[in-house]
């Protein structure tokens, strides 16, 4: 979990950053690797539930695993962006909800969307004639974010 000491950036910058993250997420869902490359630093590092992917080749592999496919359609939603400026960089965190749908065209219906993953994204952005993602880390809502709770988190559903 990122260190959140210090002053956050202005509300308007958080507002704009939310659009940038939404754009990245939407391109991920679509499998738009070229679009993601334009929004990402060439040395971008992406982590999802502990699995790491580095550089544009790593990003391509990540997209192949997480994008929507004919078998599983995915939508990555975000909310509640916080962000801090660290010199030439921005760090941010936001809540993430991924919805998945397995299309089942039949007389009985065509599938229902389901919440499939709840967690948060921690991002690092660098200025390259526009903000670019240098690192994105997606973590399930567990672990460090729950350490302040006086009662241990439920380990089983």
């Amino acid at each position, binding site marked *: 979990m990122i260190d959140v000491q210090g002053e956050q*950036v*202005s*509300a*308007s910058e*958080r*507002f*704009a950053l939310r*659009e*940038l993250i*939404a*754009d990245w997420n*939407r391109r991920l869902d*679509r499998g*738009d690797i070229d*679009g993601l490359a*334009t929004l990402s630093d060439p040395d971008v590092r992406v982590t999802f539930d502990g699995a790491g992917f580095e550089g544009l080749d790593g990003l391509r592999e990540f997209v192949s695993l997480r994008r*929507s496919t*004919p078998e599983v*359609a995915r*939508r990555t*939603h*975000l*909310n*509640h962006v*916080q962000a801090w400026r660290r010199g030439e960089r*921005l760090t941010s*965190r936001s*809540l993430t*909800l991924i*919805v998945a*749908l397995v*299309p089942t*065209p039949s007389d009985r219906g*065509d599938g*229902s*969307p*389901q*919440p*499939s*993953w*709840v*967690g948060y994204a921690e991002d690092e*952005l660098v200025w390259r004639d*526009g*903000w670019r993602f240098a690192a994105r880390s997606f973590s*399930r*809502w*567990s672990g460090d*974010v*729950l350490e*302040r*709770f*006086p*009662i*241990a*988190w*439920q*380990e*089983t*559903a």
Partner: protein
Amino acid sequence: MNGHRLDIADRSEILDILARAAWAVDERRPEDFVEQFTSTAVIERLRREGEPRRWGGERGDLTEFVPAAWAGVHVEDAQTWTSDVVMTPDRDGAHVVSNSLRVGSASGGLSNVLLADAEIHDTLVHDGARWRIAHRRIVPLGASVAPTRAPRPTADGEADGDADSGADVGGVVDRVEIEALFADYAWALDTADTDAVLRLFSDDAVMQDPFGRFTGTGPDGIRRFFEGLFVRPEFAGRIHWVSQLVLSPIDDGYRADSYALVPASFGSGAVNLHLMAFYRDVVVRERGRWKFRERLVGPRWERVQPVRLADGGAM
């Protein structure tokens, strides 16, 4: 509108319009729904297979979109979320892509199901007085439809808006700061950071638990309330997903109505939608930032006629 750019006031107003359109669908208010559209607007709802369904102002059936959205839906209540919004200036206005997550609920908000998750492509125009939706294309999740455009936002707040100057355009810029308050609250609440939560309440604040089980008043009461919440064994692992703000000016702040969805994450990897609820808040400025003076959480609150911020919501 600022030429062909979208400044922070434009973006805030557009979010306000999208939220009001969603509330109007959920509260079955067709006239308020079409108020967010131009008189010649067209709505297209694509299907995973088959021809799109269309409604239009010129056809005179735009209001029919609202009952169509409820056809075959048998739930106690529903929330339509407009999220993940990306706006791009267009030659004639703005192109806005968003996601629309629709949640149906029963058992007083404790049994919830996703009804739909669609991508929405809106074209908005400014008629000199306000923004309105001129065209809406609804693409359901899983539809094999090529995206229309991939807009590119700027993350440079200074280059794209003037919110930091303190200028307010009809109160709409306050929305941006109030949304930041909601984000800070969600992070503080969901990580059990009591001190951070308390910093977001005014000195005279009141907090009411869902369905009226407890009311905490003032800093000590608010602290007791949240400390009591955080020791509840089921609370850890939930996130508070709050949005769809509709702000109405009151004496020294705003009444803020919003949607709340509480997904829960479990160690096994399972996820559920624990709660669907509604916030009704009073937010005021205190010591340089927006804070909650009153937080009420519960089932859908009785409707109070809201005032569009751009129509005189300036404080």
